[in-house]
């Protein structure tokens, strides 16, 4: 089964790459091919639409805010299952696409144990054994995979709730909400990590590329795998050359100090009133 999935995936990736392209600039690495990016944004769009329309029905406090976005209550009710269905279909492809790299390993177990250091930014660099995806990303992926399955089953029951037994609807309703809340928690973190928390990450899903610095900082093992180089050594070297550059710049500045500077040599007194 897995080999046929890989074959399908490979074919899809090739087909999409023919229509779109990923330009890898100097100092960058290819992270997500066109196929993955298109899938990701299809999943994201259908998820956000499902989330907003679902929240309208979820809580009376949000109903009047969110239902108008979709053309009122009845339209929200009509569209929500379709948004959800599209989400599940897109995510199925995403699931097949990422099934292999999302495989849970010992490195991820260690990552979860060290999650506190990750959250508090104690270490500037991620652990040496962090691969293409880290433990947190994998957890998020599997949360979505499980939730999506719950969504599909309970969602279909709720879709046709006028014919489904009463207690089944009542239970489905709770499970559907729980899956949504679990996913929302991950979603908030996902948005944050992908934008404000980690500069340079967002371009991985737009241009499809990341800088080498980004790669050895966040995913050293992946960096080692695709470049065949040692991420730690490359980092040290980059740091060293940066310091070198900095020093030479300072030396240059000292040498070429402008003489017509009004503060010139008596700079220490310049600020006195």
């Amino acid at each position, binding site marked *: 089964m897995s080999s046929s999935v890989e074959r399908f995936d490979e074919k899809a990736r090739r087909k999409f790459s023919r229509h779109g392209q990923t330009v890898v600039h100097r100092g960058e690495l290819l992270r997500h091919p066109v196929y993955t990016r298109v899938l990701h944004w299809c999943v994201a769009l259908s998820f956000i639409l499902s989330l907003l329309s679902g929240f309208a*029905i*979820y*809580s*009376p*406090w*949000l*109903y*009047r805010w969110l*239902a108008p976005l979709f053309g009122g*209550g*009845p339209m*929200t*009710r*009509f569209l929500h299952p379709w948004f959800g269905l599209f989400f599940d279909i897109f995510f199925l492809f995403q699931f097949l696409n990422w099934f292999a790299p999302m495989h849970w390993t010992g490195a991820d177990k260690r990552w979860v144990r060290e999650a506190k250091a990750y*959250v*508090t*930014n104690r270490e*500037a*660099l991620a652990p040496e054994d962090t691969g293409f995806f880290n433990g947190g990303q994998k957890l998020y992926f599997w949360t979505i995979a499980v939730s999506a399955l719950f969504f599909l089953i309970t969602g279909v029951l*709720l879709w046709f*709730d*006028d014919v*489904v037994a*009463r*207690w089944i*609807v*009542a*239970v489905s*309703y*709770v499970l559907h*909400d729980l899956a949504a*809340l679990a996913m*929302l*928690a991950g979603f*908030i*973190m996902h948005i*944050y990590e992908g934008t*404000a*928390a*980690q*500069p*340079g990450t967002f371009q991985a899903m737009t241009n499809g590329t990341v*800088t080498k*610095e*980004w790669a*050895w*900082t*966040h995913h050293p093992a992946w960096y080692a795998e695709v470049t065949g180089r040692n991420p730690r050594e490359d*980092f040290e070297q*980059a*740091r060293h050359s*940066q310091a070198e550059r*900095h020093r030479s710049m300072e030396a240059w500045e000292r040498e070429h100090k402008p003489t017509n500077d009004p*503060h010139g040599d008596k*700079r220490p007194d*310049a*600020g006195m009133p």
Partner: protein
Amino acid sequence: MDERTMQIQEISAHPGPVAGQGTQRAVEVCKYIDVTTCIGCKACEVACVEWNDHPFRETTFDNTYQTMPSTEWNYWNLIKFVEHERDGNLMWLMRKDQCMHCEDPGCLRACPADGAIIKYENGIVDFQQDNCIGCGYCISGCPFDIPKFNPKTKKVFKCTLCSDRVGQGLEPACIKACPTGCLHFGTKDDMVQIARTRATQLQKESGFANAGVYDPQSVGGTHVIYVLHDITKPELYGGLPSNPVIPPSYTVWKWLAKPTGLAMAALGIFAVFFHRLTVGPKVPQPESEPVLTHHPDEVEAARKEKP
């Protein structure tokens, strides 16, 4: 408008006291159905269809006298016919099935649409189809299987207890049509009292030792009550639940866990902002330093010049 405000207080040139002055009537209304005196004539079914402008239709024959298996979105009043054996004799149980107008309505609790289900002070539970979004949660919230979905308009309908008639001081259509007087309409207090008297009469004079009033307290009582020959087995009467309950998902989950979930989502967003403010971003290493065009102390000095 509240009819009580239209009660006459003073009358000009009127000898003697004002009739009815100072009287207080309870606001809660109730339909009382004496199952023991129902003859199964279905006049109430016809009256309901006529008053609510529902279409007349073919009946479904299933070897009983029942019009159709259950109530439908455009057929709100259905007499359930059950052939029951009691002491070796046939006994025909005929119960008029319709919305029970619960004091604590499961449909209303389950509904997510603002203003789609309302309950009046008089106890009538009414659907407002303009606000209904057709999700069907009310159907699963109802312990009596009453709300029915209209697939064409995607709205849910049920008996209104003729709120349009009651609002004008009239009795519901079914009550008006009943030829045997097994249907009564009045205040809840009065109806419960009449029903209790009838139940006692059945116990003492007609040999129905288990006769009683069906007014289930698990939903806070209902605004449609029955007198049954055997109150211990309401299920006999076409599936009347002895202990009707609203699913906890519409009580505990909806009113306690849901707001908690929302609060947690808000907290999550807050936590993310707080993380950005305190811990800050994780920047690819080594961080590229900003190119300085001036020495920091020069910048400082320039600033001090212009206080």
